[in-house]
């Protein structure tokens, strides 16, 4: 009661400038402010680029080739994610298996491929594997293991991401309540039937969002394949940017163009993934209905 007069008094007080600004600021929605921050960062970067002599005309001439190379990124990513999902499924089944061979092999797989740098693995597939094959096998078979850079690169990325996704899939399998396998077992289903029919369908739902994250990361890492060597046909945006940028000494323009391509690609897929997650997050009810 005692502070009622104070409350009434406040509107009649004169505001300082800082206070007026604060009140005005509170009326602007948070999202608008954040958008403004983005605009300011973009504007500052743009000014910096232009001041440094950023050659917009050059970009206009060469960006198309860099952007077109995005199909290489998309193709590499799709092939690699398909292989990685297969490897991760096998790996995860090994990790939850009581068979010592399956468990041991999958443990070695995840340990090695998560414990060494991706770029080292890519060169192992590209340069070290042929040497190993030539040392061990008759020449007509050894040549099977001498791969073009693109193949070595996709295999390398698939094995590396497969190892990380093995752990995702394993945790997805383990997240299915134990009672599910018990109910299936009590009905007389074999452990293979329990896994195929009961556990994996439920685990799939759990692992789709984190698998989407891996796919986004993988799309960016396909840029490493170019480091093994490439042809013009298989050049990804990064490699195209390097080639054209170096030739004209327009590295800033070229690399910014390449970065924007990857950024755009991941942004588009992130939107797609958010929609997918929303769909799955709507609860099991709708999700199950949608399947029928």
């Amino acid at each position, binding site marked *: 009661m005692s502070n009622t007069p104070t409350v009434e008094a406040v509107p009649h007080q004169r505001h300082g400038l800082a206070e007026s600004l604060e009140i005005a600021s509170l009326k602007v929605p948070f999202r608008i402010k954040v958008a403004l921050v983005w605009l300011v960062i973009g504007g500052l970067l743009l000014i910096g680029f232009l001041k440094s002599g950023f050659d917009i005309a050059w970009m206009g001439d060469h960006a198309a080739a860099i952007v077109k190379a995005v199909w290489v990124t998309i193709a590499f990513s799709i092939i690699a994610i398909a292989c990685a999902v297969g490897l991760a499924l096998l790996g995860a089944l090994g990790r939850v298996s009581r068979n010592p061979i399956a468990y041991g092999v999958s443990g070695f797989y995840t340990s090695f491929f998560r414990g060494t740098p991706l770029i080292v693995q890519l060169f192992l597939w590209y340069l070290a594997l042929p040497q190993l094959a030539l040392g061990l096998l008759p020449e007509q078979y050894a040549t099977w293991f001498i791969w073009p850079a693109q193949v070595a690169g996709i295999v390398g990325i698939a094995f590396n991401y497969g190892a990380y996704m093995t752990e995702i899939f394993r945790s997805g399998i383990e997240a299915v309540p134990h009672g599910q396998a018990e109910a299936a077992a009590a009905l007389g289903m074999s452990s293979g039937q329990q896994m195929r*029919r009961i556990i994996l369908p439920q685990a799939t739902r759990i692992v789709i969002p984190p698998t989407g994250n891996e796919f986004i990361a993988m799309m960016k890492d396909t840029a490493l394949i170019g480091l093994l060597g490439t042809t013009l046909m298989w050049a990804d945006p990064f490699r195209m940017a390097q080639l054209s940028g170096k030739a004209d000494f327009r590295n800033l323009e070229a690399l910014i163009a390449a970065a924007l391509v990857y950024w755009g690609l991941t942004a588009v897929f992130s939107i797609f993934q958010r929609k997918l997650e929303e769909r799955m997050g709507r609860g099991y009810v709708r999700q199950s209905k949608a399947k029928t």
Partner: protein
Amino acid sequence: MTEPLVRVAGLHKSFGSLEVLKGVDLEIGAGEVVVVFGRSGSGKSTFLRCINFLEDPTMGTIEVAGIKIAAGSPTRFRRKQIQSLRKTCGMVFQQFNLFPHMSVLDNVMEAPRRISGDSAKDVKDHAMALLADVGLADKAAEYPIRLSGGQQQRVAIARALAMKPQVMLFDEPTSALDPELIHEVLSVMRSLAKDHSTTMIVVTHEMGFAREVASRMCFFHEGVILEQGTPEMMFDGSRLPETQRFLNAVM
């Protein structure tokens, strides 16, 4: 007396250093309804789960419908045997454990479709008949999450019956249910016992159900069957002190 349908002999089960079952012997004839009761931790659920090897016994033998399996290592042959034994036992769990990614009908048809070798039409007709028996034929296309707990448990009973088991195992089937839903599950179980003469082993605290339906009651205490008998004997007030104390507490 005819050959018993279920024969448990010298059953021991330890979890690490904790001995939960300390030598249980029990024979159950076809058509009997055996209610297993006792304090929590007395080993009654473990006993039930040992019968279909969801828990692997430490010692002893289990025989159901002529399939006899002793405690031992999980060899390939023994796993096959256990799988055959499980086909003769239907089990109903406290938490229902329906398959959430399948419709009610698919839940009931899943095991027979994969295992029984019956034609697709027979499997479906049988499943629909079972759903009608538990009063849920109209929910066949529904997903489990859309059903109440009582309805889910009735589906779970239909699912367990779909493999045409010779004995039904109920592990506290009404303990996870809201009080007003308990009766619908119990009435399905009552009808199984009375109208279909189903052999049943029921772990439950529902003493009203036991009094009405059980042919025999087994009181589990500290890992053994301390005493057993007909419901009349159990409720006549002249039991061992442990049994009497438990009955007074739950009734």
